[in-house]
């Protein structure tokens, strides 16, 4: 297990290095110059700025400096907000995205647990049919449409009740979180519901569930400890990609609800060609996802004794 763990961590580090390198070189293909973007700057100031950002050095040297800084966890200084470090910007905006994403994930998991269980227990009856139909619609409608519909609904609701039940957009209070988090979680919820329903139906036919019933265990115990517990393993194995999906979805939901998250900031930074912010955010997200995927892989290996023990032996 130790060796396996070390191997995986090493591989993750190499992957992060690859992401960082790919980001660096992709960025240097971007046409245009971050310094002479809009206004014309006097030659001398231009040179000073170039030196400040190290843009006057050859590409190889720039890469080395960039890597050196990354190793120290330093993403550099923003091009458009010269007094702010990229680390600060990420810290400020990512916390917003993280809260939103976490809540969306919780929504998605709870929803999937409830709908998946209901559908598998009442299989081929109306709760199942309704769930399957709902899932099909929810995975086929883009998240921004759901977000827009939610806004429309909030506006109507506020108008109907005559007071502000929920804010239409923005950020800052608890009441701002619910609608965007729910909309962000909806697609993931549908995806996980479909997965969980399928694996619950598979495990329902497993002899160990029948054996548990034959031992006279209460129905809820048979369901939770025998059926659901095994059915959750496939769900756990897709948690890494699922979190990546929620992160991606956040870009759009933040846009629609005007939430100052990292996704929205990234889109603005791209529009303004803020090199360091773009690179920093990409590497940050890349590393974040690599770590999340690794963590869930390890968690999966731990949760399934068949894998855990076979790894022990090697």
């Amino acid at each position, binding site marked *: 297990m130790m060796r396996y763990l070390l191997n995986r961590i090493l591989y993750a580090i190499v992957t992060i290095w690859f992401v960082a390198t790919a*980001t660096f070189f992709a960025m240097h293909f971007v046409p*245009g110059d971050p310094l002479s973007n809009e206004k014309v700057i006097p030659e001398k100031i231009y040179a000073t700025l170039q030196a400040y950002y190290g843009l006057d050095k050859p590409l190889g040297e720039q890469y080395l400096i960039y890597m050196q800084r990354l190793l120290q966890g330093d993403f550099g200084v923003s091009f458009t907000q010269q007094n702010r470090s990229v680390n600060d910007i990420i810290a400020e905006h990512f916390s917003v995205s993280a809260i939103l994403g976490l809540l969306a994930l919780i929504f998605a998991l709870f929803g999937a647990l409830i709908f998946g269980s209901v559908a598998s227990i009442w299989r081929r009856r109306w709760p199942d049919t309704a769930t399957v139909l709902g899932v099909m619609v929810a995975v*086929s*409608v883009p998240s*921004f*449409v759901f977000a827009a519909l939610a*806004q429309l609904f909030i506006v109507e609701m506020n108008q109907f009740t005559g007071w502000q039940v929920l804010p239409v957009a923005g950020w800052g209070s608890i009441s701002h979180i619910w609608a965007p988090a729910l909309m962000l979680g909806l697609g993931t919820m549908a995806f996980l519901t479909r997965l969980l329903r399928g694996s619950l139906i598979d495990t329902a036919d497993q002899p160990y569930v029948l054996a548990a019933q034959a031992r006279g265990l209460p129905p809820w115990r048979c369901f939770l400890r025998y059926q659901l517990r095994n059915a959750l393993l496939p769900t756990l194995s897709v948690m890494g990609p699922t979190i990546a999906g929620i*992160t*991606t979805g956040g870009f759009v939901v933040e846009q629609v609800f005007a939430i100052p998250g990292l996704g929205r900031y990234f*889109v603005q930074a791209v529009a303004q060609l803020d090199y360091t912010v773009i690179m920093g955010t990409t590497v940050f997200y890349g590393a974040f996802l690599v770590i999340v995927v690794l963590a869930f892989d390890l968690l999966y290996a731990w949760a399934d004794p068949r894998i855990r023990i076979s790894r022990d032996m090697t």
Partner: protein
Amino acid sequence: MANAADHRYWATVWRRLKADRKAIACLVMLVGLILAVVAGPSLWSINPEAQFLNQIASSPIGSRTAIVVDANELWTGPDKTPEAGASTARLSVIEANTEFVRLSWRQDTSAKGYQLYRWSEGMNAASLGMPVAVLEAGDSWYEDRLNLRPERYEYTLLAVDELGTERYRQQIRVTPVLAMSEFDAELASIAEGETTIELPAHPLGTDHLGRDMLARLLEGGQVSLFIGIFAPLMYMLFGLAYGATSALIGGRVDAIMMSIVDFVIALPFLLFMILFRVALGTEPGESGIAALVIALIALGWPSPARLVRGEILRLREMPYIEAARLMGAGQRYLILRHLIPNVMGSVLVSFTFAIPSAIFTEAFLSFIGMGVVPPAPSWGSMCNDGISRLLTNPHMMLFPALAISITVLLFNLLGDALRDAMAIRRGAD
């Protein structure tokens, strides 16, 4: 197991697919959709970039009959000015059409001036709306010509004192009639003397720039479907070749090739889509479609490569392949006759699922303004245009959103059906 290279396999798959009424309905609708998008623009020949300035953001169900008015006439107030002197300024509408709204009121001797506001649907319900004019104490009429549309307005006239503080307000609701100026009517070569004309039909309405939604939806569909089908086709083929090569060579080469796959999969997809999209750049006048396709291919190929490699490794262990090898079948024969046809099944299913996800990605990127560049329409960018006008013109968001959702739904359903039809192989394994 039935050898999939056998024609019977595909015949069985096709037969099972045909028996699935839902699948056939999806297939027919998808073919219809693609045909409509390809042939549609020649049937509905309105230029998607033409702006119908008289019909800006008109809804599909709105009236198309417009009155012709003389918009050049200089209005000098109502013929009969209401008498001054009463204690309140009673606001009234003299005439209201989309070329001009004429308001008048009784002068109030105590008021030292007036402010006029216009509120319309979608504005903050608590506000008075947009300030239209600041008027003198002696004024008793106003002509509003600012960006008028055939929707409900609420005008508010504030009577103010010397300091500009509100004394009282008068409100009036009005819905301007659709109108066309004589000048425009002449340009559109409509016979002189006509008092009403029929404006061009827009079955799905027009957008905020007065462009025909149907024409744009069809052209946008070409863009969205092209990206959605072509890019996955390319990266599935590349992934197939890559995965097959990796599996067949095996050993260290396989290990290295698969590490590369792992690395590329680890890249944060959407961020790199944006990065590539920006790095590949769009010169002025370019649509950004090529950049999107290249970015999709660059990031999309690893999943099919992994799938194909896994399938080939699995198939190689199958007894019948083993048997063929023992009987002296050559590598080349095995690949062509057994491996590739067998792998094609899973590749076809994942291709069917790759299409909706590519359509989603395009819509996503265009929605946040990182995809197809205006004026080239795509369903995603049309949604982006629509969302800011969701409250006033819901049809601008509704139609492109429906187009995306229905297309994606159909491809998803077809993919499910195809996977079920292919499942005979899993059963026979």
